[in-house]
């Protein structure tokens, strides 16, 4: 209808494609169609044209979303570093032993594993697949998620088998004075 108003009689003369859907002449059409003769081809043309406009608007919205992510990544304030917290004593855990803790306070459970005489590793205990708790399999050098048989490397936290695709977030540790301190969390999980 917009085209009709803009184009006037010239456009109608060029575009003589207006016919009822069944192709019969207008005189044979029912009264309601004669009273309201929709320009079918024009109607289809305008509806598709309007759909293209709407989809371009959607495209603009997606681009705005991308730039919002970019804005967030550039101007995001880094989380304040939590102070070091003593989470265990060295003597508390035997080699191969494990302990759960929270760091910072109120976080999701973390898992501390003693892998050697003076070596410890700590990760988020939630599997990066569907958040089941992982359990250490120190003899295999891995962490195991029993829910869907996911496996992570004990030294790096990277997934080695099963459904998980992302590594476990790692808790940074500092061993001094016979105690194990948590000093930070590696946010990157890729």
């Amino acid at each position, binding site marked *: 209808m917009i085209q009709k108003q803009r184009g006037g009689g010239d456009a109608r003369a060029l575009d003589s494609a207006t016919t009822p859907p069944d192709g019969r002449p207008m005189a044979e059409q029912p009264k309601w169609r004669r009273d309201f003769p929709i320009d079918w*081809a024009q109607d289809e*043309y305008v509806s598709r*044209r309007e759909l*293209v406009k709407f*989809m*371009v608007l959607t495209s603009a919205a*997606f681009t705005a979303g991308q730039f919002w*992510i970019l804005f967030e990544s550039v101007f995001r304030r880094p989380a304040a570093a939590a102070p070091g917290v003593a989470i265990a004593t060295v003597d508390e855990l035997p080699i191969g032993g494990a302990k759960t803790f929270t760091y910072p306070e109120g976080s999701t459970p973390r898992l501390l594993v003693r892998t050697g005489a003076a070596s410890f590793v700590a990760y988020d205990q939630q599997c990066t697949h569907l958040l089941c708790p992982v359990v250490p399999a120190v003899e295999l050098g891995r962490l195991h998620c029993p829910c869907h048989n996911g496996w992570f490397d004990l030294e790096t936290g990277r997934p080695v088998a099963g459904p998980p695709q992302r590594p476990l977030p790692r808790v940074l540790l500092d061993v001094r004075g016979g105690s194990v301190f948590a000093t930070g969390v590696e946010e990157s999980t*890729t």
Partner: protein
Amino acid sequence: MIRRPRMVRSQRMTIVNAMLVFVALIVILQLWLLTATMNAYLGGDTGTVVPAALGSLACLALNAGLLWYLFDLDS
């Protein structure tokens, strides 16, 4: 100046249908790009954010160009 002959409605209809397919494909690509970028960003990987934003902007420019052609077709 050579004036382009005005196309009849059936020709314009074909062009609009083709444009609709192109624009739909590009929008689907942008949707995938947005979800993939969001997934990577929330996972802590910010390396993909800038290229993805530029890629999405290029897609928008392509869509805007097609829309401009559509307006040109109608005028």
